[in-house]
């Protein structure tokens, strides 16, 4: 195991300066995620347009570098994608951090793939997988319009 694998520069950078932080304008969906083990909490705000495209996406909350970076990278990656493709990407991401599968989606450019793959280091740190996946589960929940908050204990 190598800490630099986990804490890649991209992650540190996103952890320090998260993108899309705050409530986005006129969001249509939101959901709350919570990791009771560490107390990490995030809230995801989402604006779906009429064509079911993710017009805007943002978040608030606090957590460790991994969870903040993962959320930040997620917002960057998904923004502008259709609902269908967003769901594909979520599955891709979850498969990657849990089973080290490759990113299959053809809708991501190289830069986006690199960013997403920078999170694959958590696979070596089982207790940190939940940090990386919290945002993505929460996004699913926002898309599904669920009322309950996402809880990593249940989500895994």
């Amino acid at each position, binding site marked *: 195991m190598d800490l630099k694998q986990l804490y890649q520069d991209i992650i540190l950078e996103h952890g320090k300066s998260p993108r899309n932080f705050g409530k986005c304008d006129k969001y249509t969906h939101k959901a709350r995620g919570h990791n*009771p083990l560490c107390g990490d909490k995030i809230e995801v705000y989402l604006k779906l347009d009429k064509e079911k495209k993710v017009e805007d996406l943002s978040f608030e909350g606090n957590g460790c570098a991994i969870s903040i970076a993962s959320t930040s990278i997620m917002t960057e990656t998904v923004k502008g994608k259709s609902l269908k493709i967003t769901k594909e990407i979520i599955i891709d991401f979850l498969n990657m951090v849990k089973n080290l599968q490759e990113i299959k989606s053809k809708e991501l450019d190289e830069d986006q793939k690199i960013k997403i793959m920078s999170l694959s280091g958590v696979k070596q740190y*089982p*207790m*940190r997988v939940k940090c990386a996946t919290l945002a993505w589960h929460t996004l699913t929940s926002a898309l599904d319009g669920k009322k309950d908050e996402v*809880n990593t*204990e*249940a989500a895994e």
Partner: protein
Amino acid sequence: MDINTIKSEFPIFSKKINGKSLVYLDSSNSSQKPISVLNSLDNFYKNEFSNIGRSIHSLAVNATNKFEETRISVKKFINANSKEEIIFTKNATESINLVATTFGQQNINKGDEILITELEHHSNYVPWHYLRETKGAVIKFAPINDDGDIIIEKLKELITSKTKIIAVTHLSNVTGTIVPIKEIVEIARKKNIPVLVDGCQSAPHIKIDVKDLDCDFYAISCHKVYGPTGVGILYAKKKWLEKLPPYIGGGGMISEVKKNKITYAPLPEKYEAGTMPTAEVVAFNESIKFIESIGMENIINHEKKLTNYALENLKNINSVNIIGNPKNKAGVISFVIKGIHPHDISTIVDEEGVAIRAGHHCCQILHDRLNLPATARASIGMYNTKEDIDVLCEAIKNCRKVFELK
């Protein structure tokens, strides 16, 4: 594994009792433990110990994984639907109290009826009695016949529109009666009544399939299933665990805690408050593996043969009276000897290294029904042999000598 060499896997059988080899016939009380379980316990404490589910350092991660592996093994062992349905408790008694308390809180009101049977262990009566005291519930006892079988027709008749739950043992710890749970669940299902099964005695001795039984709750004590003390299991259908309120409150079972409000963790954590018997749960995985390495079918066959052998031989001893003659009997053999109190029997056979139990076995209702203040009980585990039964029979004959009975 050869059923004849099983005994050698249990370290305690190299011990001498009063200079004699130990003949352990008290497994219904608690079973002995195979070496693999003890090694797991020892290894966990010596090399891997950490609290689980809270810290994220390497030891804690490993311990948490091992702990959860046991949950998955238990799920498979009893064929549950998901691991969220497996709750670790301290013993079967706590498992039943958990259900009685939380189910009672939500579903029992004054005049509501709880249906149990005359076979029940105190652990499957006292928790319901509390609801009688605090909520004004009514407890009904399905009667048994002289053979020790529950009279199913009578049980049916006792069900009313007020019956809120049926709680029944799977295997009597006095008569060895194997109760037709499926039949009872089917009856209950028609009236939409949940069924709790006390599986304390069945878990080590018959194949458990909660999906097939279709019961709502199933309680197990690991120390009777060749596992460590300090761990019990509650199986419950997910819908119940989701719906019922939490039981013991504290660390680990919460989600968010504010000064004015508390939300609870998802399953199974919702019901696992405080530090768990971590090492003991981890080691219990080895108990399951041990049973599976032998095969439950083989264990059942072995115990069946031994039970029949014991029954035949005991019946041949003048004045030994076997309690109950159920249709389907497991290796739990209670008996009395005219003119000798069970306690005296126990003391006398102990002199020969034979461990049996004497008393009411936490079943006073059943003993009242049988009109006996106490019985002696020999109960069989997978490690018992024909020789054990022979020693028991000789020791029992000695009782009559000591008491100078003809």
